[in-house]
Each structure stands twice: as C-alpha cells, then as structure tokens.
C-alpha cells in the first residue's frame, strides 16, 4: 500500500511500460499453436523461430511493420523523471499509449494470414510476401501496457479527478466489451451482407431475409409449416403467457394463502438455474415420447397407437413452460409482496370486497411486474436452444435454424447471420420493452420498509383456482425431476425397466491402472473440461461484473449510459447468436481463438457478465455512498477503497456472481455448441450428442451428475467466501438477500 501523497507518484506508469516491453521483447508475439501454457515453445527454437519469436525478433525477421511499435515503447522513458503535474507527463503518455494501442490493433487487422487483408492496400503498396497469425500473449501484454499508459495519461491530464485506477478500469472494460461483444456482433451484421462470392451486397441480405422459410404463412391455410420467424414468435408468446400466469398463481399461493408447504415452493426457483436447458425436454421424452411411461400406459389402457404429438410445438411449449415458470415466479413474488398492504387495507376499509380489492387495487399495481415476467419468458423462449433441439421435430425455430445453417450441410454463414440478426431484433425489442417497464415499476409499487399490516387474503374462488393450478403443476415438476434422477438407473426406458448402474459406469468408471488412477468412463473428458473452464470463467466473470458495477454506481463520467448499454447488451443476445458471432469474429487473425479453451472462457465471461453487473449494482446501491467517501477522505485511493471497504461488504453479491457464472457455464448449450472442439468438448454438447444418438440412459445419468455437482459447487463457494462479520446490521443483510434474488431473476 503506497502513500498516495505527492511524493511517490513519479513514474507510476513504470510497471505498465515494463509490461509492454515484456510483451514486445520477451514473450512469443503470435499465438502458440500447441498452447502457450504447455511451454513447449521454450525448447522448440525460441526465441529465433518465427513461430515463437517475440515481436522485436519478428520485426528483424521480416515483419517490419512491427518496428514502429518501438517508438511508443521508448517515448515514455523520457518522462520517467517527471512528475504527474508536468504537462509533458500527460502528453507523452496519451500520445504514446494511444498511438501504440491503435497501431497494434490496426496492423493486426491489416496484415493477415495471406499478407494484406484489403485489396486496396495491395494495389497501393504491391503484394506482400510476409504474413502473420493471430495475436498471442506477447501482443496481449503489450496492448494492455499501451492501454494503461494511455489511461494513466488521461488521468494525469485531469480526467476523473486524476484517478488512475478508475480511468484505467474504464478503459480496460471498454476495450474488453468492444472486442468481445461489439466486434463479434458487428461481424454478424457485416457477414449478413456478404454474398457467396465474398463481396458486399444488399442483394445477399434480401435474398436470405425475404424467403418463405422465414416469413411463410402456409400453416394458416394448409398443413405445411410456417416460416421460422413466425414459429419462434408464436412459441415465445405462448411461453410468455403460460409462464406468467403460472408464475402469478405460484406467487399468490406463496404470499397470500396459508398453504402449508408454501415455503418449499421457493426452492423451485433454484431448479432452472442448476438444470441444463434440454434436460426437461429429455425427461418429457421419457414420459410422453413414443416409448414414454405415460404414453405406454395410456395406449395400453385405451388401445390407441402411441403418437408423436410431443415432438413439435406442444412439446417445446410444455418443456419451456416447465423450465421458465420458476423465473416468472421469482419476478412476480417480489412484485406481489411489494404491493403495500396498507393500500389493500385502505381499499377494504373503503368497503371493497376481497375480489374487488384484488381486481382494482392489487392487480393494477402488479401490472408492470406481470409485463416484466412476460417479457423475460418471451426472451428466454426465443433464446432457448436445448428444448427445441431435443423436442423440435418439424417445428423449426430461429435458434435451431441458425445452428443448422452453420453446422449442417449448407454451412451458409450469410444465412446464419441473417437469422441471427432477426433473432437479435426480437430479443432486443423485448429487452428494451422490459427496461421501460422496469423503470416504471418503481413508481407504481410501493416498497415501504416500516409498513405494517397484512396483505388481504384472497377471495375463496381465486384461492382455489390458484391452488388447483399450482399443486398439480408442482407435482408434475417434481415428477420430471424425479424422472431425471431415476432415469439414469434403468436399462432402457420404456422397454426394459430393470435397475442398473451400467449408464453411470459407462460414463464415469474409474480404474486403477499401472500408471495410477485411470479415468475410463466416456464422460470424463468433457466433464473435466467443463469443470475447468467453468472454474476459470467464474471468478473472471464475477470480477469483471463487480468492477463494472462499481464504475457504474460509484463513478461519474461522460458516456456512462452508453457504457452501461454496452456492458448489458450481451444479456439480450441469445446464445446461438453469440456462438455464431464468435465463430465469425475469432476464426481469423488478429484474434484466432476458435478451437481453444480460451474462446469458451471468453464466451462465458461476456455472456454472464451482465448478471454480475446487475447483482453488483443492486448490492452496491444499498451501500451508503458515504462509506466510500469516508474512506477517500481518510486518504485511501479508489483501489484501496474498493478492496478494503466495498468488496468485504459485497460478499453476498460475490458469492452469487461466482455461483451463478459457474453454474451458467456448466449448463450453457446454445453458444457452446458452436465453439466446442475435439480437444475442448463441454458436457452439455456431449450430452446433446448422446440424445441425438438415442442414448437416453447415459444422457440422463450425466445430466443428474451435473446437477449434483452444481449443488455441491454452490455449497462449496458459499463456504469458501464465507459470511460477513456484521452483527445486528439488518440493512446490509437485506441487501444480500436482495442481490441474490435479483441474480436468480436473471436466470
């Protein structure tokens, strides 16, 4: 902890300059094929081999366009003895950092695998014989160094009250979001306009966009299927309505009745978080598929032929309603509780009956919450990939169509991009509608702390309807989960119901071989990859999310709204779109990441970051701002304040962010399925493969193992991060509960 006074600020940028030099002159500049961390490159000809050489050597070996990077690395040496207040200090840092960063990026985009990336440049300078591959750790370190030199310069020039940490943090978050959210999405937009010959054309977009496959309405008049856009929209509307109504019924039962087990209803809300999205579909197949238990039972009873009704709209709708009702419940329970009891009491003292009170006071106050729940159901349904994949049949929706456009025989990136844009438009519109509603919510529902009084009971008819709907549904949900746990223990569902451990031993057997423990089961590979990658992604997601929320809540800077939009954007992007965009953006230099584990980690970090941000914002706005200010006036800088005051008070939010991002990384399918490779296969995509082969037993066994692992992880993280040492501080405890539930809302 250095003194922050005027004495030691001299050359505070030095570590970052050294970082830049290390990246430029020591580490391999380009991507190392066999993996940097294998360190094979150290004995394979480093530093002179052109595959492993640092930039300085690369430049000498012929990649001369790397030489100009020396200038911005040398310039800061001249101001090393100057103080922060010297105008040259800021000027040199801004210019060298800014130029270095911009030049480094530009050369990466301009010179590619086959020389010039742009024909115009080739015409201008003549053909180039040299080439370069994707950037590696060397380039990464140097770029980071330049970026922080630049932001240090800005801080010295007075931005953000001269706070280097805050300025740099903002700079880094912007750079990351630009690279891993905006760049990929931008690539999708561009590639929608590229024709098969590789030139830009609006015609290509029109051709892909205005086809009967997307917009056809044949299903209204004939038995043929409609376009995928209509299918997706129709399904999302159905799911939105059904989840909202069921969620409301559950919320009313939980808050307005004396139903005995209403507390255990709340555990329902954890389920969708720890359930891989296709697992519900899988369980439905075991119940209602052609060989399903109930199908068999009914067909024996009535003598009808087992039907395939499950595969298509009814099946997907059922699966999605099962999957997303708990989320609607979570959203609505807050809203239903938030309706001030005194308003209901006022209504009753004015002579209104319980039904009238509900209809004319409570329900209107819940309206924004209902809209919010509907929109979340809508977005989730649109983005859902697993259930349509497993249960879709001939009912095609956007998310699966995108997948088949890329992976199938067609391999038509342009078409995938067009579909992705369409899907993005749907979810973004819903997302913005939701934000508008959310904004209004705070005006209409009252959340008075000191209010006493009881909520009005429900009118008996309504109460019976709610119980009549929710109890069977809860039982159904339980049956589904029972199925998931039990299904892994029978030989072949629907045919041979004798108990077996065979599926588990196939997937997870362990053997003592001569070299020690041998992971023999077929699932171990993908299992360990999944755990490793999720465990790497979780802390990164939490850190980035909380840092961003700190900047958003506690700092004032220009363009903050845009900054917030950028960091929240990926929340509204369906996983399939992310998957496609990552493939398009990171398949070629300068960022050549496909096939690596890094791309999976990055994908998880930036997909789940918005949740960390939201949770952090919720928790941090509850912390009195004077705590930070007290720390600042006591001489701590903003980094110390964050570390010693804010983070310790945010422990519950940290736990939630860690758990959530870990679990989401494990259960994610839609984006991952594009990004896995032979070396880095994830559990979910492995399971989907099993389902496609009809190996339901192993698939179900593997899914239950994942669910157990996630429950274990939640428990462990909670233990590891621990509780805060605060007694009698109810306000803060309320914070933690709030941030947790908010997090769960995002599920």
């Amino acid at each position, binding site marked *: *902890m*250095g*003194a*922050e*006074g*005027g004495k030691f600020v001299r050359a505070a940028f030095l570590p970052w300059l050294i970082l830049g030099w290390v990246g430029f002159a020591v580490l391999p500049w380009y991507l190392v094929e066999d993996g940097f961390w294998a360190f094979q490159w150290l004995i394979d000809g480093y530093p002179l081999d052109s595959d492993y050489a640092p930039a300085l050597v690369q430049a000498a070996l012929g990649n001369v366009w790397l030489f100009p990077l020396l200038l911005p690395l040398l310039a800061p040496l001249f101001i090393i003895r100057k103080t922060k207040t010297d105008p040259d200090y800021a000027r040199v840092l801004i210019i060298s950092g800014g130029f270095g960063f911009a030049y480094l990026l530009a050369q990466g985009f301009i010179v590619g695998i086959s020389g010039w990336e742009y024909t115009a440049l080739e015409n201008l300078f003549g053909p180039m014989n040299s080439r370069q591959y994707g950037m590696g750790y060397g380039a990464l370190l140097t770029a980071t160094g330049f970026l922080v030199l630049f932001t240090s310069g800005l801080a010295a020039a*007075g931005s953000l*009250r*001269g*706070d280097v940490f805050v300025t740099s943090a903002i700079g880094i978050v912007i750079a990351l979001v630009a690279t891993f959210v905006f760049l990929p999405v931008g690539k999708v937009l561009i590639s929608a306009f590229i024709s098969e010959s590789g030139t830009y054309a609006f015609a290509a977009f029109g051709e892909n966009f205005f086809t009967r496959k997307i917009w056809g309405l044949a299903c209204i008049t004939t038995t043929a299927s409609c376009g995928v856009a209509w299918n997706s929209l129709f399904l999302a509307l159905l799911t939105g309505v059904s989840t909202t109504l069921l969620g409301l019924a559950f919320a009313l039962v939980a808050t307005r009745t004396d139903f005995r087990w209403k507390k255990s209803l709340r555990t329902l809300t954890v389920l969708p978080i720890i359930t891989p999205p296709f697992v519900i579909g899988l369980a439905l197949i075991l119940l209602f598929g052609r060989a399903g238990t109930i199908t068999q039972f009914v067909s024996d009873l009535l003598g009808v032929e087992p039907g395939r009704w499950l595969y298509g709209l009814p099946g997907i709708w059922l699966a999605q309603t099962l999957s997303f009702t708990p989320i609607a419940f979570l959203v609505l329970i807050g809203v239903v509780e938030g309706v001030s009891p005194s308003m209901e009491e006022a209504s009753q003292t004015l002579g209104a009956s319980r039904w009238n009170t509900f209809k004319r006071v409570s329900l209107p106050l819940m309206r924004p919450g209902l809209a919010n729940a509907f929109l979340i159901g809508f977005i989730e349904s649109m983005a859902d990939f697993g259930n349509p994949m497993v249960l879709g049949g001939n009912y095609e929706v956007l998310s699966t169509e995108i997948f088949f456009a890329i992976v199938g025989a067609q391999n038509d990136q342009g078409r995938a991009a067009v579909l992705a844009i369409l899907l993005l438009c749907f979810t973004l519109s819903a997302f913005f509608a939701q934000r508008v509603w959310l904004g209004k919510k705070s005006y209409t529902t009252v959340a008075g702390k000191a209010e006493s009084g009881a909520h009005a009971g429900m009118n008996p008819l309504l109460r019976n309807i709610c119980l009549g709907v929710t109890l069977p549904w809860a039982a159904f949900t339980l049956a589904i989960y029972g199925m998931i746990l039990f299904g892994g223990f029978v030989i072949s569902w629907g045919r041979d119901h004798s108990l077996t451990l065979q599926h588990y031993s196939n997937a997870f057997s362990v053997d003592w071989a001569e070299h020690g423990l041998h992971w023999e089961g077929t699932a171990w590979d993908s299992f360990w990859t999944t755990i490793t990658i999720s465990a790497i992604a979780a802390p990164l997601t939490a850190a980035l999310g909380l840092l961003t929320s700190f900047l958003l809540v506690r700092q004032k800077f220009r363009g903050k709204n845009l900054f917030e939009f950028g960091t929240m954007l990926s929340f509204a992007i369906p996983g399939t779109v992310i998957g496609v965009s990552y493939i398009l953006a990171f398949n070629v230099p300068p960022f050549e990441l496909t096939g690596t584990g890094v791309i999976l980690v990055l994908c998880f970090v930036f997909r789940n970051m918005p949740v960390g941000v939201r949770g952090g914002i919720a928790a941090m706005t509850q912390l*009195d701002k*004077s*705590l930070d*200010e*007290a*720390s*600042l*006036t*006591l*001489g*701590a*800088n*903003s980094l*110390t304040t964050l570390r*010693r*005051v804010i983070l*310790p*008070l945010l422990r519950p939010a940290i736990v939630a962010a860690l758990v959530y991002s870990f679990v989401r990384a494990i259960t994610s399918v839609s984006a991952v399925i594009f990004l896995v490779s032979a070396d880095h296969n994830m559990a979910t995509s492995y399971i989907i493969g099993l389902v496609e082969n009809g190996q339901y037993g192993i698939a179900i066994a593997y899914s239950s193992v994942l669910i157990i692992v996630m429950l274990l992880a939640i428990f462990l993280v909670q233990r590891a991060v621990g509780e*805060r*040492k*605060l*007694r*009698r*501080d109810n306000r*803060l405890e309320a914070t933690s509960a709030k941030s947790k539930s908010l997090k769960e809302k995002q599920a």
Partner: protein
Amino acid sequence: MSLHLRPGSVVFENITKKYGVVTAIDDVSFSIEPGHLVTLLGPSGCGKTTTLRMIAGLEHPTNGRVIIGGKDVTSLPATDRDVSMVFQSYALFPHMTVAENVGYGLSVSGLGKQETGERVEEGLELVGLAGYGQRLPSELSGGQQQRVAVARALVLEPEVLLLDEPLSNLDAKLRRKVREEIRDLQQKLGLTAVYVTHDQEEALAVSDRIIVMNRSVIAQEGTPRELYEKPASSFIADFIGDANLVEGEIVATHSPNEATVRIASLQCNLPDRGLAAGPVKIAIRPDCVLLEKASPELKGIKGNIIHATYLGNQIHYTIDSALGELFVVDYRIDRAITAGSDISMTFASRGMALLAS
C-alpha cells in the same frame, strides 16, 4: 496530548459549482481562520453541504479556487487532501472493529502496525472510548458511534476537520451534550473545523463564526451575536431565531447612528444601520412583543388574540393587528390572556432591528 495538529486556514475564492444547468454554488468567497469553528448554516438545498464537500475534495468546483493551509488544492482529489470529515451517517465501516475503523486512515497511508495501534488508543481515549476498540460499530450506541467517527477523523491530524450535520442522527437530549463535547474538543485541540447544520440553535451554540447560506449564495456572515442582533435581511432575521417582520417608517436619523422609527401608532429609537429616512422593514423577536389586556388608557397597538397555546414555561400567542398577524412568546404564565381577548401591544427595543431588505 500527542496529537500534532497544524490547524490550517480555508479560503474559498469565487467558487461556482454547476450540475448541468443547475447552479448549486454561485460565486461564493469566504475565508476561515486557523483554529476557528465556522458553521455553514442554511435551509436544505442552500448549497452548504456542497460547499463542505468541495472543501473535502469530494466535489470539485466549476470555477474558482480552494485554498487550504495556504496551498491551492482546487484540483486535488479527497484522497490527497489533508482534511478529515465526520459524516452525517458516521459512515463507520460495519465490517471493521472500532479500532480498525479508527486506524483505517493511518494504515492506508502506510503507517506501521504498532504506531497505528498506539495512535488508535490515543484517539479513542480522546473521545472517551478507551477499551472499546474490539467492538463492532453495530454494538455501540448512536452517540458512541459518533465519537468513533470523530476519533477516526482526528487521528489523521488533519489541517481541517469537517462535520456534516453530526448531530442529526442523535435524539434531542443527547444532541446538546454531544455538541458541547465537540466544541470542547475543538477548542482544546485548537482545531480548524467547518460544521454544517440546518439547525440555527446548534449553530449559535457551537460556532466562532456562522456563514448563513441561502439559494446558492452567502446571505450573511458573522459571529452568532451579530447574526441574531443585526440580521442583514428578513431571511436572516426569520431564520436565526423567529422574527415578526413589520412595516414601519424612519422618521428621522440622529447621530450617533440612531434612528427614530414609527411603527403604526408607536415610536421608538433604534440603531439606524446606515439607513436613511423613509419606509423600512423591522424585525421584532417574538419574546419582545409585550401584551397587555386592552384598556382605554393604554397607548399601544390594538390587536386581538386568535390563538393562545400553553407550553408549560411559556405561552404562544397569535395576534391579529394592524401590522398583520404576529407571533408572540410570553413567559408570564400567571398572566395568561385568553383567546379572543382584545389586547394592546408595545415592543421592547432590545429585540428589534431595522432591515436593509
């Protein structure tokens, strides 16, 4: 006492602070001498807290210079200023013990563990909380928490101590005790202190000088006595102690600085405060309106009692008269006059002041 305080002066030079189009502080200048306790007083939204936060470095002025201890600190952030602040909410870190709270500033500035510990002990002793170091803030009473906040600010030996409504979270009885403690400590240590409050009584009680702010500018500055006895405007007269504002006329002025003033049917001599003959506003303190039951031989101003409220040691009257509605405080409980009675009023000149505006 081993605190080594170097009390500093505070100078505001033509400070303006704007938030977008809203002007929170409009061209304010003042200076505070070392070792003085100066209060920024005013109604909510007058800019007093913004002013305090600009001294702390938590806000930065749009225009003008802030000088603390002779150094221009206008562009320095809070972290780098030699100023400590006691917050309205105390802002004690709830996850740290009392000792960790008090030692926080020392430890982030790189002081060793042992020295930090010693100075924390001294700080706690100073505010009478020796032995409370291992408790959590939530285990202390409001008054004790407040004292921890003061100790935390003092152990850094700041040039200036800032106090933002430090008593507002305490109950009424404790308030008087704590404000006396703060004043004693400030005088004992010779601290420069800037104190923000909206409570005029509190301001009168603790301050060497008071800066009254209203609508983003300084309304008046002076010692407590000057402000009470010589209010510069009807705002000040009304804000510092209650006042009835009545219209009158300066009939004549005589040296030295005296004016003959006519109010309705009464005439009296008051300090002229540089005013010339003509219509004038006069502030009259409620306890300086003297009431008698009306009788033909009394020559006071006639009026009628609309309300009479008994408050134990005093009676509050609302009077309807030719001067308008007047508020009167009367301590002569035994001579209470019932509502609806006609009365005759005179004024005691010690509670009257001519107003320039």
